[in-house]
């Protein structure tokens, strides 16, 4: 339940009313008291003046005799009459003279007693004795009798006979002895009336002033404090509940006090909050957009890694499996594998330094460059040398890549590799255990522009496995900040060594997970395992074979030998082999010299035996600049020695010596095909009539 809010207006009103009333009460009480005291003194003084007057009438020397005899005389009667007159003229209740028994100060024996007839009391006769002295007068009486002076305090009381004051004086005889006390009791009738009138007036005035002051003050308070506070409160509440457009009402308050400052501040705060919220909304939207784009980027990056397994279901020679468990942030690990050509499988494992978008972008560049430059027959050292050079050109952020690339010749089992600062692979030989294959690490890619990389090679036998990974594996940490390390990796690999490559990676992964526990993963964990299952038959093509070599003149002999070897194996006669050898020389030389200009590329040379009539078909495929040699104008063969140039002779020889020459440009490839009918050494084909073509 919400606590009920109290209203400031009510609290202030009640508070002010209480204070004003309290002030009025205090003022009235004080006034009342002062008023009473003054009047009482006035009355008392009057009573004493009457007492002094009465004292002069008395003949104290006769008191003893009067009391002793109980007889009055004319002198006594005269004094009594004067006192009776004085009690009336002085508006007193009583004037009496009495002897006080100084043993108890209580017993009084009256000598004179003048009573104002208005009181309705009877006079006490001479010698009347009674113990009627008010006990509160005792001390005063004692004081009067002892010192002969007046009472120190005003004596007055409020009895049933009304408020009165009493003056007391000692009566001395001619010898100065105190013989009696003279008392004058004067009613304070005026005081009574004046006092009630005073109370009435004060009450009325206080009420009027209170109401008026309260009203004025409340109106002022309401205008200056209560209403503005209420408005500020309401506005603040409205804004808090529903922070839409700030209202202008607060600046309209125009309050000269602190409230005005508060109002302006609240108003400004509302505008600021509004602006801030709008800003925040924009920033948040932008952040979300960037986040969404980063997710898309991460997906694109992820989709750049081949992730369909088995990778090459149609290939029996090798199997490959790879996983990447990315860390929270986009990272720069990557692996790759692809067929360089029919008979070569390439694997790449790399790690870009750093994390986040820069690393991811650099990874994309690195991966693309490596794959692009890995061409059939190309030296991997050259590939990395060139990739490194290109990466250095586009590396403004000082990033670098550790990378390992290997190409497995599925025919021979030769595994050529190049290492740029990357981890060393593990190799499992057939039935043996996984062991680190020590290779020189080389320098990282994108580090130094003129770095040269060397290719190394090893031979894999059927059944051998190769495992490659990134440092996310060995540098996985547990809660005690220990690293997973190469030894644990080796142990995990060997636990799973008899399993399929997929399960081997799974075993390693489980081992890392068990080791790391709930410790956070800082780096991508990337692994790849390749198994060389069986050799590819050398002559994989039905009735044919192919060779992929770099397009350099140095490979001329290799190509010539390959083609001739294949033709010989097909049982082609010398008459066929020599023209083809010449044609191969011409065409390969052309490609080597011109197809890739200054760049190096590769050429695929395919030798096949086809159809009826049986023909030897040699195909050259290169990815150099598009060029159709058949467009070339035939040379004039009728010129003299001096007139002859040498251009175009080669292709002319090919055209003339082959049965069919075709060219096409397709998918970025120059495909040149030469065909020559096979005249078998065994002579069978020779008997076939020519007209069968």
């Amino acid at each position: 339940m919400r606590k009920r809010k109290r209203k400031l207006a009510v609290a202030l009103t009640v508070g002010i009313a209480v204070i004003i009333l309290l002030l009025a009460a205090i003022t009235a009480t004080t006034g009342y008291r002062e008023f009473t005291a003054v009047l009482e003194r006035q009355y008392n003084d009057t009573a004493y003046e009457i007492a002094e007057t009465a004292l002069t009438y008395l003949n104290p020397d006769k008191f003893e005799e009067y009391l002793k005899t109980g007889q009055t005389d004319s002198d006594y009667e005269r004094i009594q009459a004067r006192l009776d007159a004085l009690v009336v003229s002085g508006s007193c209740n009583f004037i009496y003279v009495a002897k006080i028994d100084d043993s108890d100060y209580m017993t009084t024996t009256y000598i004179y007693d003048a009573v104002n007839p208005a009181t309705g009391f009877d006079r006490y006769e001479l010698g009347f004795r009674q113990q009627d002295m008010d006990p509160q007068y005792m001390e005063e009486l004692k004081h009067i009798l002892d010192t002969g002076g007046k009472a120190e305090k005003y004596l007055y009381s409020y009895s049933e006979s009304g408020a009165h004051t009493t003056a007391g004086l000692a009566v001395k005889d001619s010898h100065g002895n105190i013989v009696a006390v003279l008392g004058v009791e004067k009613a304070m009738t005026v005081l009574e009336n004046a006092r009630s009138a005073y109370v009435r007036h004060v009450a009325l005035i206080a009420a009027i002033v209170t109401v008026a002051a309260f009203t004025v003050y409340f109106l002022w308070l309401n205008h200056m404090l209560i209403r503005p506070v209420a408005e500020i409160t309401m506005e603040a509440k409205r804004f808090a509940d529903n922070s839409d457009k700030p209202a202008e009402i607060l600046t309209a308050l125009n309050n000269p006090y602190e409230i005005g400052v508060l109002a302006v501040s609240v108003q400004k705060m509302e505008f600021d909050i509004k602006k801030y919220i709008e800003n925040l909304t924009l920033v948040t939207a932008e952040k979300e957009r960037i986040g969404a784009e980063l997710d898309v980027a991460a997906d694109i990056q992820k989709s750049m890694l081949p992730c369909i397994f088995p990778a090459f279901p149609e290939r029996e020679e090798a199997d490959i499996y790879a996983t990447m468990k990315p860390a929270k942030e986009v990272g720069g690990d990557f692996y790759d594998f692809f067929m360089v050509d029919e008979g070569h499988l390439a694997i790449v494992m790399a790690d870009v330094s750093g994390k986040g978008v820069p690393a991811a972008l650099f990874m994309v560049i690195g991966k693309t460059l490596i794959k692009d430059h890995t061409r059939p027959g190309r030296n991997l050292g050259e590939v990395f040398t060139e990739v490194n050079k290109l990466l250095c050109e586009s590396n403004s952020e000082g990033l670098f890549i550790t990378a390992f690339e290997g190409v497995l010749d599925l025919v021979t089992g030769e595994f050529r590799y190049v290492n740029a600062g990357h981890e060393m692979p593990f190799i499992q030989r057939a039935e043996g255990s996984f062991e680190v294959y020590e290779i020189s690490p080389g320098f990282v890619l994108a580090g130094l522009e003129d770095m040269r990389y060397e290719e190394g090679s090893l031979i894999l036998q059927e059944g051998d496995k190769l495992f490659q990974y990134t440092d996310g594996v060995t540098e996985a940490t547990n809660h005690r900040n220990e690293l997973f390390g190469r030894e644990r990796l080796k142990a995990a690999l060997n636990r799973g060594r008899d399993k399929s490559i997929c399960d081997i990676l799974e075993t390693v992964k489980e081992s890392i997970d068990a080791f790391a526990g709930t410790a956070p993963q800082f780096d991508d964990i990337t692994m790849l395992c390749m198994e060389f299952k069986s050799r590819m038959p050398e002559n994989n093509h039905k009735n044919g074979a192919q060779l992929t070599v770099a397009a350099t003149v140095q490979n001329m002999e290799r190509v010539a030998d390959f083609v001739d070897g294949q033709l010989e194996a097909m049982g082609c006669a010398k008459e066929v082999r020599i023209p083809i050898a010449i044609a191969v020389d011409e065409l390969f030389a052309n490609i080597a010299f011109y197809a890739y200009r200054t760049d190096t590329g590769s050429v695929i040379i395919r030798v096949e035996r086809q159809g009826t009539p049986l023909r030897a078909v040699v195909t050259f495929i290169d990815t150099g600049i598009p060029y159709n040699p058949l467009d070339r104008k035939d040379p004039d063969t009728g010129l003299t020695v001096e007139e002859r140039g040498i251009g175009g002779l080669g292709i002319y020889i090919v055209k003339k010596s082959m049965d069919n020459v075709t060219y096409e440009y397709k998918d970025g490839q120059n495909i040149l095909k030469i065909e020559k009918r096979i005249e078998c050494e065994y002579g069978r084909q020779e008997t076939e009539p020519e007209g069968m073509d």
Partner: protein
Amino acid sequence: MGTRGLEIIREKKGRRYALRLVGRLDTSTAPQLQRIVEEELSDITSLELDLEKTDYISSAGLRVLLLAAKKMNRTGDMTVKNVKREVQEVFTITGFDKILKIE
């Protein structure tokens, strides 16, 4: 095809120079002959090329032969002998049979 590359057997008698080309005269081997043609023919009046053991000649080889022929045209003469069928075919196709003196 037996012999790889090209072997050139030289026989010099005064201003007569006899070269026996053994193997194939193609892109890879033509530079060998070209060097001889460029460097050793200055005082020769008669050049004899024996192609008996030459398996084939490609256009790169023809280029060197043409170079030699042009050179010898000015200082003397050049003869080609013992041309095999495969080589003869190339000469025929290219018209070299008409510009070379073939015995």
